[in-house]
């Protein structure tokens, strides 16, 4: 019985394979469904609009608040021209933007921001990588890192100024202390929450040691690491602004110095102008981080179509 049936089965098996692969292809196309390019293009336009309108609305609200403040005559001297209407204020900001001084201030501040953030990035990442690898170190330093995060960065300035004098180094020092713990924590969280199923899969594949880190744990940690980088930026930027207001360096123009000057000159409109510049820089950088975060989440299918962009 066995021998005749087996040989018969063999021939039908070959034909069966072709039929089977067609059946599988059919099932695959049914399951996936196709999205037409026209629909995709429409979706892109909708997404662009969805990304833009909140920002336009935010600008409108801010200008409205300014107008209300102007009309309220809070300071009692609208007539003296100390407080200008949004239109006039924006006109004076436009004028400021034609002077080299504001651009130089923006350039200097941006340079300090980039330097401090990169330092924090390197130091935070290295600390995070080391601490997440060595469990006893993790137990010992975990609470210190979280504690550092809750410490307002401005409290570090007296220490930093005594240590470094009134210099950019003092500001950089406080920026690193503010941002590095968030970055380190982001990486540690990512490593901690690497799904155990993926770790098991990686280990059966033979990934060990450095390779396990390089190809599995680090990529798996990327979303949490990015969140840490974003939070780290927010801390670095705040520390930088506080630092530029506190650490007055002679001959070094920066956004903080311009704010200080506006304060000294009782120039309310000037102060508002500089604040707008600071706000715009913050929003732009935040948009970059949000975009990176969305790109990572979309690649991993952690984003559904209905979610806000």
């Amino acid at each position, binding site marked *: 019985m*066995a021998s005749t*049936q087996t040989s*018969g089965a063999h021939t039908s098996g070959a034909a069966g394979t072709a039929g089977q692969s067609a059946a599988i292809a059919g099932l*695959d196309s049914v399951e996936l469904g196709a999205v037409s390019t026209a629909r995709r293009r429409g979706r892109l336009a909708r997404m662009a609009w969805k990304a833009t309108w909140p920002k336009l609305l935010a600008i409108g609200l801010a200008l409205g608040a300014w107008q209300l403040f102007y009309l309220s005559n809070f300071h009692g001297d609208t007539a003296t021209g100390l407080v200008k209407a949004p239109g006039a204020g924006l006109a004076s900001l436009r004028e400021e933007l034609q002077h080299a001084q504001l651009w130089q201030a923006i350039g200097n501040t941006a340079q300090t921001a980039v330097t401090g953030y990169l330092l924090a990035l390197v130091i935070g990442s290295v600390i995070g990588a080391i601490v997440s690898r060595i469990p006893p170190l993790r137990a010992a330093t975990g609470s210190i890192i979280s504690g550092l995060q809750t410490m307002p960065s401005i409290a570090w300035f007296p220490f930093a100024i005594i240590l470094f004098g009134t210099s950019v180094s003092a500001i950089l020092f406080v920026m690193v202390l503010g941002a590095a713990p968030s970055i380190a924590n982001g990486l540690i969280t990512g490593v901690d929450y690497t799904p155990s*199923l993926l770790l*098991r899969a990686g280990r059966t594949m033979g990934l060990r040691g450095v*390779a396990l880190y390089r190809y599995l744990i680090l990529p*798996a940690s990327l979303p949490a690491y990015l969140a840490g980088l974003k939070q780290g930026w927010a801390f670095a930027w705040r520390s930088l602004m506080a630092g530029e207001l506190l650490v007055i360096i002679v001959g070094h123009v920066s956004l903080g110095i311009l704010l200080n000057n506006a304060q000294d000159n009782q120039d309310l409109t000037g102060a508002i102008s500089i604040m707008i510049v600071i706000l715009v820089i913050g929003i732009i950088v935040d948009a970059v981080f949000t975009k990176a975060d969305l790109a990572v989440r979309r690649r991993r*299918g952690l984003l559904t179509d209905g979610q806000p962009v």
Partner: protein
Amino acid sequence: MNARGASGDTAIRLTEISKVYGRGPGAVHAVDKLSLTVGRGEFVCLVGASGCGKSTLLSIVAGLDMPTAGQVDTGGRRVAIMFQEPALFPWLTARRNVELALRAMKVRTDERRRRAIRLLETVHLSDFADKRPHELSGGMRQRVALARALAQDADVLLMDEPFGALDAMTRDLLHDELERICSGRSLTVLFVTHNVREAARLSDRVVLLSSRPGRVIEEYDVPRTGPRRIDSASVADLASTVTDRLREEMRRDG
């Protein structure tokens, strides 16, 4: 117990394996003095109610978990494991997922890509090589996972309810696929399932385990008489025999 041929023909030999979780009166005996031999090229299904330590046993054979007592001997063979979840890396495309397994085996870069494509062809997914896991259906993901397991060039494939989360139609097709792939490669397969029909459909031998602690209570040899289908009479017969025995066992447990 199963003295199947000489030791050279034995792929997996488990001797009096016990696994206890926890200590003292709260300890759970997941597996108790379980012995099992799987011959080279044999397809064995482990069937049992939940809590019979099926998955624990596979983890032990895979080396992901250590037994509390007893010995595991796989004769130095390469062992790959597939889980109920595909466990693919979501940041990599299907091809890169397969390539990573090859990389872990230190296959050369130019060779990796070629072999990954060929493995995806084996599971009929070459058109989807550059898709990420979330862009694939459940059945397709599990096929990528199968390709990744095959990439490990293992002699022993452990499968932990790999088709448990799939719909019946996809599962049927994957049964045919798995049968074709295994017979072409003379793989030794230890397959865990709670689906008795699936076991009868696929295996050369069905091993029935008792619940908590897990022990072998019955074994059923399945004669190879050509192609089987999930709805063929012989499969249904064996499935009902196994199910009756399983129910009897569960009643005894209360």
